[in-house]
C-alpha cells in the first residue's frame, strides 16, 4: 500500500499549526500589531500560485481569463508583500529601549 501524497501534505499542515501555536504564544503582546502585519505579508506567498497562473498562457493567448485572474492576483499579493513587510519594518524601528544614561 502506498501513502497518498495528500497525507504528507496534511502532516506538514498539522505540524505547522503546532509550530505556529507555540511560536505565536511566545510573541510578546506589545508586538501583536507587527505580528498581524507580518503574517499578512507572508500569507501573500500565495503569489507563487498567481505567478504560475499568469505565466501559463501560450503566445496566442496571453490574455485568457485564467491568466488575467493570475495577473490581478499578482497585483494584489504584491501590494500586500511590499506593504506588509515595509510597514512592519517601519513599526519595529519605533520600538526602542530606555536610554541607559537617563
Amino acid at each position, binding site marked *: 500500500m502506498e501513502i497518498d501524497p495528500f497525507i504528507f501534505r496534511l502532516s506538514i499542515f498539522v505540524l505547522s*499549526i503546532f509550530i505556529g501555536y507555540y511560536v505565536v504564544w511566545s510573541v510578546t503582546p506589545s508586538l501583536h500589531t507587527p505580528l498581524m502585519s507580518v*503574517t499578512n505579508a507572508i500569507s501573500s506567498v500565495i503569489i507563487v500560485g498567481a505567478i504560475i497562473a499568469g505565466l*501559463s498562457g501560450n503566445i496566442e493567448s496571453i490574455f485568457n481569463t485564467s491568466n488575467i485572474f493570475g495577473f490581478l492576483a499578482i497585483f*494584489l499579493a504584491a501590494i500586500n508583500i511590499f506593504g506588509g513587510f515595509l510597514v*512592519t519594518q517601519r513599526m519595529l524601528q519605533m520600538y526602542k529601549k530606555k536610554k541607559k544614561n537617563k
Partner: protein
Amino acid sequence: MSANLLAIFYLISGILFVLALRGLSSPETSRRGNLFGILGMIIAITVTFLSIGNFSTGFIYVLIFLLVGATIGAFIAYKIPMTAMPELVAGFHSLVGLAAVFVAISAFLNPLAFNLGSPGDIKVSSLIEMSIGAAVGAITFSGSIIAFLKLRGIMSGSPITFKGQHYINLLLGISIIVLIFYLCRTQSDSIFWRIIEISFLLGLLLIIPIGGADMPVVISMLNSYSGWAAAGIGFTLENTALIITGALVGSSGAILSYIMCKGMNRSFVSVILGGFGTTNSSIDKNQNKKPVKSGNAEDAAFLMKNASSVIIVPGYGMAVAQAQHVVREMADNLKKNGVKVSYAVHPVAGRMPGHMNVLLAEANVPYDEVFEQENINNDFANTDVAFVIGANDVTNPVAKTDPKSPIYGMPILDVEKSKSVLFVKRSLSPGYAGIDNELFYRDNTLMLFADAKKMTEEIVKNLG
C-alpha cells in the same frame, strides 16, 4: 529545476517564515525576524520563476503587475499614519482574501497549468481544496472590507442587527458545503461561481453585526481566515511554502482572537453573533444623579507633580485624539520632576491587538515602560495617580462587583486602587458596553472633561 529541488526551496522559505514570527518574541530580535521573512519571500518568488522557465510569453505582464503592486504597497507602507494601522491591517487582509479567490479561479479555469487535470475533469480532491480556498478567501475579502469601512468611520461602528440573521448565515454556510459537494459531482462552472458569490455575501453578513470595540477580535479572526484560505490554495497547488504559511497565519490569528476574547471575558461565539451593547441600553439612569468631582488641568498638574508615581492608562480615545505624543511629553516632564511614570495597556485597548503599544512606540515611549495588564495590575495599589486617557470599560470596577453587568468577569485594570484617579473624558457618556462607569463617582476620582489631546497639552503647560 526539478520538482524535488523546488519543494526543498519552498520548505526553506517556510522555515524562514517561522523564524520571522519567532523573532517577534522580543523587540530586539524582531527586526532581524522581519528580514528572515523578506528573504523567505524572495526565495519563494525566485524559485517559482525559475521552475516555470517560460520567460517569453506572459513574463513581461507578470513583471508589470508585480512592480505596480509593489510600488503601491511601498507607497502605502511609508505614507500611512500609525493611527490608521487597524484599517490598514483590515485592508491588507481583504487583499489576501481576494488574491486567494483569484488564484482559485485561475486554477479552476486552467487546471492544466497546475497539474490538476483538465477543464471539466479536475481531480475531486483538488476541487474540494480550491473551493474551500476560494470560499474562505471570499469570506475574508468581504468581511475585511466591512471591517475596514467600520474602522475608517465610513460605515457606522455600531452593530447592525436584524431578526433571523444567524439563521441566514447558517443557511448560507450550509449551502456552500452542499454546493461544493455538487461541484465535485458535476464539475460545473456555474456552481463554482455560486460558491464564490455566496461566500462574499456570507462575509458581509458575518461582520455587519459586530460593533467597534469588538474589532480586535474581528481583525484577528480575519487574520486567521486569510491564513486558512492560503492553506487551502496551498493544498490545491501542492505547494509546501503555502501550506506551512497558511497554517502559521491561521493559528496565529486564532490565538490572537482567543487572547482578545479572554481580555473581554466573552466567548468567541458571542462576539461573532454580535450585537453587544444594543440590548443593554436601558441602564438605570438614577446613577447619573450621583455627584461627580470635576477638575481642570491645573489641578491635574498639581496632583501629578506632587505624586511619586503615576500610571498612564491609554485607550482608544487617545488614538482618536492622536494624543500619544503629548502624553509622552507629559511623562517626560513628570520624570524630570522625579515622578516614576509607567504605562498600563489592557489587551483589548484600542481597535486591534497591540494598538496602544504601536502608538506609544511611535511617540518614542521606551517599550520597557509599557506594561501588560498582569504585570502592572498589582502596582496600582501603591500608585499615587492613575491617569486614564481615552479608556473606559477596561477600568470599570463593576466588572468585579456586579454579576448582572454585561462586562462582569472581564479582567480590568485596577485603577480604582490607586490613591487618586484622573479620568480624561469628553463627557460622562458610557463606553462601548453601554454601561455607566462607577469609577466616575468615586471620591478619589477627578474627572477632566475635555478632548484628550487638548487636556494633556494644558497639563503640560501647567507642569511648566
